[in-house]
């Protein structure tokens, strides 16, 4: 039976239009950029380099739980392993030796070693702890060198330290449990080869526990050796703690391990930092460096213990200087310093230095891996920056596609067309303008043919709109505070801007709004980014020109309040700017740019509604009682959504178009769609009375507060991904009892007649509840992210875009999950609907990313183009993937394999045949006459 169904499905999928790729189209419409995330551990692999030359490979571990090997020549990824997200996959230590990359991760800890060349797992050893780490899992520190691994768990008042010396079996050497009142999971501690060293700001002490004091017997409580911070030459910077609930509270004093040395620690307080050397007796002594202890943030690398050289990276604006300081000589090694400049004014976060012997003269040369606070990774040698990776792109939070301007010549024409004065005048004008355009086109053509090397590869191509508006600029905002402008066809970065003082909003979001598009020449386009300040958690608004990245208007503005939500109005002011409405946490409303309150918001105050949410309630507000002095919210309704916590509110995309108002039934009658623009899907989660997962899905009108429809799923857990468009909703979830991923599809209809065919009103009295069609399907895969395709006029059928947990991006036709698929055969059928089958089978030809796997997708962005058939798709996450999709095939363009030669040949053949037969006919006629 199953096979029969499968066969039927295959038949159907052949019969219905599918828009899969051909093999020769690889890379034609798509590109992929692989990322690794922000690097936090790195080491050069020196095994592959012959006679002590520069390393060919660089092993890195990142905060995105990725282990990767980079080619030091060009920075390309040779291989990478993506570990699970969260604490389980965190790579806590990295040690590269003899062509093996050894990492410690997972809970309980596992020691894994990989072959640096191939990425094959060589060995996997569980490190057996005596305690149950689940209950004790506070902060974990791992110190790891070639012969031993030390693991320390810090919880409140207790530190558990375990040393493993046999790395083949994972057997313990010793383990100790230490109780101290000041230890907590927030303690700033560092593990060295010989000690556990902590710094406590409130005590003003550096406390060190040497492992030599930990005897084999655990009877006596070992004592910490304390050193005062003053003797190190540091003072605790006092920070105001008025924003105690701010997410990233600045820690007054930090202690970090130093890359390359198991006996040194870096202590940082405010702007100054110092390197501490820990002796085997637990003594802590600061390393005396010549004049480099204050000023910019610096990171140190100690390559060899006996002939230690400390490298510091000091930054001054965009110039960075790495200087080496010899401990044995006590002087700076001028020959080993590196100088270079970077694009953004960011501080250095991490430095890993490799010293090697230069091949020609045998001198010691230096190469350095520099990781900046904007997540960019540089490899630097004496000539300068060898390569650069923008790893901020691995944590994209917001994307917006911006149309490019049309070339200046056409702009002038359109400009003149606007002001007409008489028919004859405008005709003459038009003819003249088009003549001049033709001339300039001819001149351009001539110039191109004369100098074919006109466009050199290093000069960036001019950013102008192409014929079908497929060429766009993607504005990308990342979690590190860096904003990028990216060419969507090539993936090249056009501009980048680093805002060091911002962080994402509490919901881990950054908001991007296009306030003015390029359509309003000569006004430049304007975009606004809404974020949060790093220290105070108050709101930040950054206004910029999306084509260049340059700040416009007030640029970066720091607001005196915290942002609860922000939205853009559909109406614009005289400058064609759509104002941004920002609601603060105390429900005050502010408009951006200021001044638009009066001109735009107040005239529309009767039709403006704002719904705010907290974790359990959604409250609807009206702006009706606003006055000229201030905008005011009046609460209208408040709704609680069982089973409790609101996980997400999914509205339709602003400007969501519905092409046809109804659907034709099998009996030729029309079923009208319920297209409420104010409808939102609210997903709430909680537990039922027997502690099973419960999921509530509500369709809520955000203006009136009416719940249009709701469903409760029991024993269902997330992640829930919702797609909401036109009159349908599709969401995916995991069914706990059936142990499978499921997809639920809803479609709403008004019925066989429409209440008001021209406009929809949420407040139009008692409404008939819409008809809700629903069906659930089984998905044989999990979903990482979802979206739907968007086209210019919404005539083309919409496709679902699902990022599967296998790593593929699938384009799923909506008829496949249509809730009106009939349950039984027979009877007249609606067009394009096949019989219901519970399982959604996806042909592998519908994977638009083909064999490129995207292991960690966080979102999919789709935008329309000038062609109705074509939609652009941008997938972000650890990797970036861009493609064009044709949900109903390319119906408005010739296929790219259109055989011009055959058509031209056939035409020429016909003409030739006509001429020949004419000749023949004439000859025949002549014969006939002679007869």
């Amino acid at each position, binding site marked *: 039976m199953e096979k029969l169904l499968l066969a039927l499905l295959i038949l159907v999928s052949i019969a219905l239009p599918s828009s899969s790729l051909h093999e020769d189209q690889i890379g034609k419409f798509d590109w992929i950029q692989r990322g690794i995330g922000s690097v936090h551990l790195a080491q050069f692999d020196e095994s592959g380099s012959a006679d002590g030359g520069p390393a060919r490979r660089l092993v890195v571990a990142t905060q995105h739980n990725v282990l990767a090997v980079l080619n030091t020549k060009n920075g390309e990824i040779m*291989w990478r392993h993506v570990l699970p997200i969260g604490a389980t996959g965190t790579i806590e230590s990295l040690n590269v030796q003899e062509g093996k990359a050894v990492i410690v991760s*997972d809970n309980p800890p596992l020691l894994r070693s*990989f072959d640096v060349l191939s990425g094959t797992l060589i060995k996997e050893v569980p490190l057996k702890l005596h305690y149950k780490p689940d209950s004790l899992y506070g902060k974990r520190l791992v110190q790891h060198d070639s012969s031993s691994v030390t693991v320390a768990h810090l919880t409140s008042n207790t530190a558990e330290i375990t040393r493993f010396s046999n790395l083949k079996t994972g057997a313990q050497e010793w383990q100790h449990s230490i109780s101290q009142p000041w230890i907590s999971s927030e303690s700033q501690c560092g593990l060295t080869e010989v000690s556990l060293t902590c710094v406590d700001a409130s005590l003003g002490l550096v406390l060190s526990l040497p492992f030599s004091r930990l005897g084999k017997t655990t009877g006596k409580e070992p004592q910490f050796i304390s050193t005062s911070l003053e003797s190190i030459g540091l003072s605790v910077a006092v920070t105001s703690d008025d924003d105690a609930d701010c997410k990233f509270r600045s820690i007054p004093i930090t202690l970090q391990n130093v890359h390359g040395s198991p006996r040194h620690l870096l202590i940082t307080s405010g702007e100054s930092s110092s390197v501490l050397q820990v002796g085997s007796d637990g003594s802590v002594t600061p390393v005396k460096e010549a004049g480099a202890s204050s000023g910019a943030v610096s990171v140190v690398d100690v390559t060899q213990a006996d002939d230690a050289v400390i490298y510091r990276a000091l930054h001054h604006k965009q110039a960075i200087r790495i200087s080496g300081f010899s401990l044995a000589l006590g002087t700076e090694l001028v020959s080993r310093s590196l100088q270079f400049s970077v694009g953004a004014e960011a501080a250095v976060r991490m430095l890993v230095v490799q010293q090697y012997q230069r091949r020609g003269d045998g001198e010691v040369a230096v190469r350095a891996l520099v990781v900046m606070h904007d997540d960019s990774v540089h490899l630097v040698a004496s000539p300068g920056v060898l390569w650069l990776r923008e790893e901020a792109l691995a944590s994209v939070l917001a994307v917006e596609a911006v149309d490019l301007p049309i070339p200046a010549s056409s702009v002038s024409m359109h400009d003149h067309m606007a002001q007409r004065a008489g028919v004859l005048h405008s005709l003459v004008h038009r003819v003249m303008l088009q003549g001049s355009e033709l001339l300039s086109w001819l001149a351009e053509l001539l110039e191109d043919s004369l100098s074919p090397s006109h466009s050199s590869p290093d000069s960036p191509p001019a950013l102008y709109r192409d014929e079908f508006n497929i060429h766009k600029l993607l504005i990308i905002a990342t979690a590190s505070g860096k904003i990028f402008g990216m060419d969507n066809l090539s993936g090249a970065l056009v501009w980048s801007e680093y805002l060091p003082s911002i962080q994402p909003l509490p919901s881990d979001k950054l908001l991007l709004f296009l306030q003015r598009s390029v359509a309003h020449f000569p006004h430049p386009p304007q975009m606004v980014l809404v974020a949060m300040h790093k220290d105070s958690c108050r709101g930040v608004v950054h206004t910029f020109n999306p084509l260049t990245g340059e700040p416009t208007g007030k640029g970066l503005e720091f607001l005196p309040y915290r942002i609860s939500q922000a939205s853009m109005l559909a109406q614009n002011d005289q400058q064609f700017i759509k104002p941004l409405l920002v609601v603060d946490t105390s429900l005050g409303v502010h408009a951006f740019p200021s001044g638009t309150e009066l001109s735009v918001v107040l005239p529309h105050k009767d039709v403006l509604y704002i719904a705010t949410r907290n974790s359990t309630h959604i409250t609807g507000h009206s702006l009706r009682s606003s006055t000229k002095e201030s905008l005011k919210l009046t609460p209208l309704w408040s709704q609680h959504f069982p089973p409790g916590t609101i996980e997400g509110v999914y509205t339709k995309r602003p400007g969501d178009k519905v092409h046809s108002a109804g659907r034709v039934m099998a009996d030729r009658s029309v079923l009208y769609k319920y297209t409420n623009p104010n409808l939102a899907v609210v997903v709430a989660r909680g537990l039922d009375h027997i502690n099973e997962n419960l999921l509530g899905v509500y369709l809520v009108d955000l203006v009136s507060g009416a719940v249009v429809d709701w469903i409760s799923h029991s024993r269902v857990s997330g992640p829930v991904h919702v797609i909401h468009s036109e009159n349908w909703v599709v969401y995916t979830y995991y069914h706990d009892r*059936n142990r499978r991923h499921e997809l639920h599809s809803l479609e709403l209809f008004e019925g066989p007649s429409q209440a008001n065919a021209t406009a929809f009103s949420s407040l139009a009295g008692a409404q008939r509840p819409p008809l809700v069609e629903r069906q659930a399907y*089984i998905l044989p895969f999990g979903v990482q992210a979802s979206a739907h395709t968007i086209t210019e006029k919404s005539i083309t059928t919409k496709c679902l875009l699902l990022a599967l947990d296998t790593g593929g991006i699938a384009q799923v036709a909506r008829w496949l999950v249509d809730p009106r698929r009939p349950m039984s055969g027979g009877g007249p059928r609606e067009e394009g609907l096949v019989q219901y089958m519970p399982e959604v089978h996806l042909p*592998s030809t519908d994977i638009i990313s083909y064999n490129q796997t995207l292991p960690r997708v966080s979102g999919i962005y789709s935008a329309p183009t000038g062609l109705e058939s074509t939609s652009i798709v941008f997938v972000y996450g650890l990797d970036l993937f861009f493609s064009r999709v044709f949900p109903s095939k390319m119906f408005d363009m010739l296929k790219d394999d259109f055989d011009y030669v055959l058509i031209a040949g056939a035409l020429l053949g016909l003409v030739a045949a006509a001429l020949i037969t004419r000749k023949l*006919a004439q000859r025949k006629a002549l014969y006939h006459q002679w007869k």
Partner: protein
Amino acid sequence: MLVLSRLLVFVLASFSCLHIVFALSDEEGSKSVDRFTVEGIVERPLNYPQDEAEFFAGTRIYTNTGYQAFLKANGSFVLHNLPWGSHFIHVVTPNILYAPIRVDINSKGKWRPRKVNYLQPSKVEVLSTPLKFTALGPVRYFEAREQWRITDLLFNPMVLMTVVPLGLMLLMPKLSDPETRREVESQFQLPKTEAPDLSEMVTNFLGMGSPSTSSSSGPAAGTACDARRPGRGGARAARRKDK
């Protein structure tokens, strides 16, 4: 409740065969015995060409519960730290398809692999141990281009409909032996039809013939012309009328 009873059945069933799996630390009587390991093998098909480094670094082995394993050079893998319960193990490699396998681990750490059945999750089809992933085949991501072939054109019904009668027209006069011709004709006494001359038709259609040709488009004229030159094509009908 259903799960519990099912589990009970499964515990009873699993005592009979199956591996001994070591728990993480069961020494000294400490009761933290709830993390288990599952071992398996991924068979690397040799008939599909694939780069070795791509296979080992590009193959992901993960469970729906968030655990992950890595491939060793001999194709084996170990999933560590699994809690008891059901885990679906997926082996994903870009160009080769593997079916997922469900593994049920009981609270004692015994486990059995099962065939994945999303439609009927309670249906038990136990697979043999050791856990082994066998390739189902290569994944086809692309549609083949429609290639232009001369045979496609020749066997097109439209082309056949025009070419076959044309061929017959050319071949019929070649039956020059008068006896056979007479025989054939006696067998197929075709009614005399006013079939138009082909060459005439083409000339008329193109409208390029001299007015005299078009005016004298009677069968007699065609006959006269064709009688002179019997080798030419399109003369069959006229010739028949001669008789």
